[in-house]
């Protein structure tokens, strides 16, 4: 077996012996420590973002229909619903209508979004607790608490469809029992209530008929959306959970990119220290490098030796930082060490989720930066003339 190239044989020894020199060992420590710190910070920051985003996503997606279809006016929603239910991947199809309205209880009126559904409460009203045998309106637990109503109480629902009377248009109003509560969550922008379509008849404006479709999962929903489009009459609009939350997902994505760029700067600065470190190392080893060159080490090989040295220092720092970041993220997540004010956020602690692909990217970027800086730090070697190094 052919021995390793010279650079690989010598680099570990050179790296070890740099510790004897105060100046280079200081610079090496700063460079490695800086890169480690930068990588750890990057891993932690991204893990916090991922954790928060995953929780946020779960929270928001639980309150978003997987697929929503807006049919053109006059379409036969009932017939289409049975047709679409037969499509591969579709688990459940229901008709619904959405309109603005007001909920009145104990003399207080709240503006709400009214969702009227066929068959069963849509899954975008999660964790609902329904009172058996009561037909009526399902209210968010938060709103119910604010209005002081409980399941079984009576409330008034005011629709946006006016009745024309001799004294002018009058709002339509209906007394309904509170049939149950659902968990409204802290991410909702407004209050929502739900009631069966037949109870809402005549209360809501005659808008376009809509369908909500449930599938096996979020990815299936995206796949099914494409299949549905072919079956729908022209003028229909299909919205997936992605379409419904597009601004949010874009904001999360942007946040992550900006965070990555900003925290990466730590690594960049540390990598520049590495350049200084290598330059100093070269000056202090100039004669020995000359001797190696004089004995026949190719200039390229010496360049490789120093690139490798840089990678040992920087790569070691990057790996240590990656490990540190992962371990700290795990600990913080496991023991819920970062608390959040529960009144403000929908979570009472900050979750950390390390995504392996992201960790790989961070390490890759750090190593690439280290490599480039090391290459750049060794450019002087190319112009070395061994005779000058050897002559005292």
């Amino acid at each position, binding site marked *: 077996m*052919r021995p390793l190239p*010279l650079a690989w044989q010598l680099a570990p020894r050179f790296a070890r012996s740099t510790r004897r020199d105060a100046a280079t060992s200081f610079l090496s420590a700063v460079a490695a420590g800086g890169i480690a710190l930068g990588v750890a910070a990057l891993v932690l920051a991204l893990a916090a973002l991922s954790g928060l985003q995953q929780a946020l996503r779960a929270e928001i997606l639980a309150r978003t229909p997987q697929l929503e279809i807006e049919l053109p006016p006059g379409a036969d929603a009932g017939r289409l619903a049975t047709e679409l239910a037969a499509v591969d991947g579709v688990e459940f199809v229901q008709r619904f209508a959405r309109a603005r309205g007001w909920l009145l209880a104990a003399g207080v009126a709240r503006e709400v979004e009214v969702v009227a559904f066929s068959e069963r409460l849509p899954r975008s009203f999660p964790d609902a607790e329904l009172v058996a045998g009561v037909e009526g309106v399902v209210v968010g637990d938060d709103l119910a608490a604010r209005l002081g109503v409980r399941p079984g109480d009576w409330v008034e629902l005011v629709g946006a469809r006016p009745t024309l009377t001799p004294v002018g248009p009058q709002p339509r109003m209906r007394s309904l029992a509170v049939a149950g509560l659902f968990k409204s969550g802290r991410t909702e922008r407004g209050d929502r209530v739900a009631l069966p379509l037949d109870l809402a008849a005549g209360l809501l404006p005659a808008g376009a008929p809509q369908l909500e479709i449930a599938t096996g999962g979020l990815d299936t929903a995206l796949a099914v959306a494409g299949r549905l489009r072919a079956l729908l009459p022209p003028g229909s609009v299909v919205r997936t959970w992605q379409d419904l939350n597009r601004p949010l997902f874009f904001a999360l994505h942007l946040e992550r990119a900006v965070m990555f760029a900003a925290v990466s700067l730590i690594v960049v600065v540390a990598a520049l220290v590495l350049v200084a470190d290598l330059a100093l190392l070269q000056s202090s080893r100039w004669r*020995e490098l000359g001797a190696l060159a004089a004995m*026949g080490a190719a200039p390229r090989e010496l360049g490789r030796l120093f690139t490798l040295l840089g990678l040992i220092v920087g790569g070691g720092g990057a790996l240590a930082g990656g490990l540190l970041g992962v371990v700290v993220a795990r600990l913080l997540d496991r023991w819920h060490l970062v608390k959040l004010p529960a009144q403000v956020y929908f979570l009472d602690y900050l979750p950390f989720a390390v995504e392996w692909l992201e960790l790989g990217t961070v390490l890759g970027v750090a190593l690439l930066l280290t490599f480039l800086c090391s290459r750049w730090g060794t450019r002087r070697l190319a112009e070395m003339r061994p005779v000058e190094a050897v002559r005292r």
Partner: protein
Amino acid sequence: MSVEVRARGLVKSYRDGERVVEVLRGVDLDVAPGELVAIEGPSGSGKSTLLHLVGGLDSPDRGELAVGGRALAGLDAEELARYRCQTVGFVFQFYQLLADFTAAENVLMPARIARLPLASWRRRAGELLAAVGLADRATHFPGQLSGGEQQRVALCRALLLEPSLLLADEPTGNLDPASGEQVFALLLELARAHGTTSLLVTHNPGMARRCARVLRLQNGALHELSR
């Protein structure tokens, strides 16, 4: 594998601002394969400079230089490195040992540079150190060795790969007569055994006398000393 050295009209000068120092002003040199040649001359006459040129560490301003029939001027940086690695064994005037490596590892360095399997060469390095009386210094670092000991390590290093061309810049300059004699004997023996062409800078008349020829460098030119 013996090589011949042939130089014609080598000129080398150093420019230091306004001042130009003409060190070599047309040096002719012919060394037959396997020949042992001594070079002497006053300090500053350019002996080291000449050896550096022949060893491919520097290039002449003018003149031709060929080793083993190959002109050094035609080689690029990588080829020159290969020439130094595979053909030349150099004992530098100031040893130039690597401080982070022990005596034995320093001797082994040419094998590392040539990427040869180290196990067998490690044994050879031990033998060479023993032959110059440094068996018990093999694991010492250069900083722990005397000047003369370092010089002997440097010689072992130059001899390790049995080079075709040995260039030794005052290889015994720091040694007492007895050690100098021991080292010179080893050099002589190995050079004979491997047909090494050797160019030796020395101020020692006794040693010079035992070389095939003695050349004197003075005023930038080489003269054969008649004996």
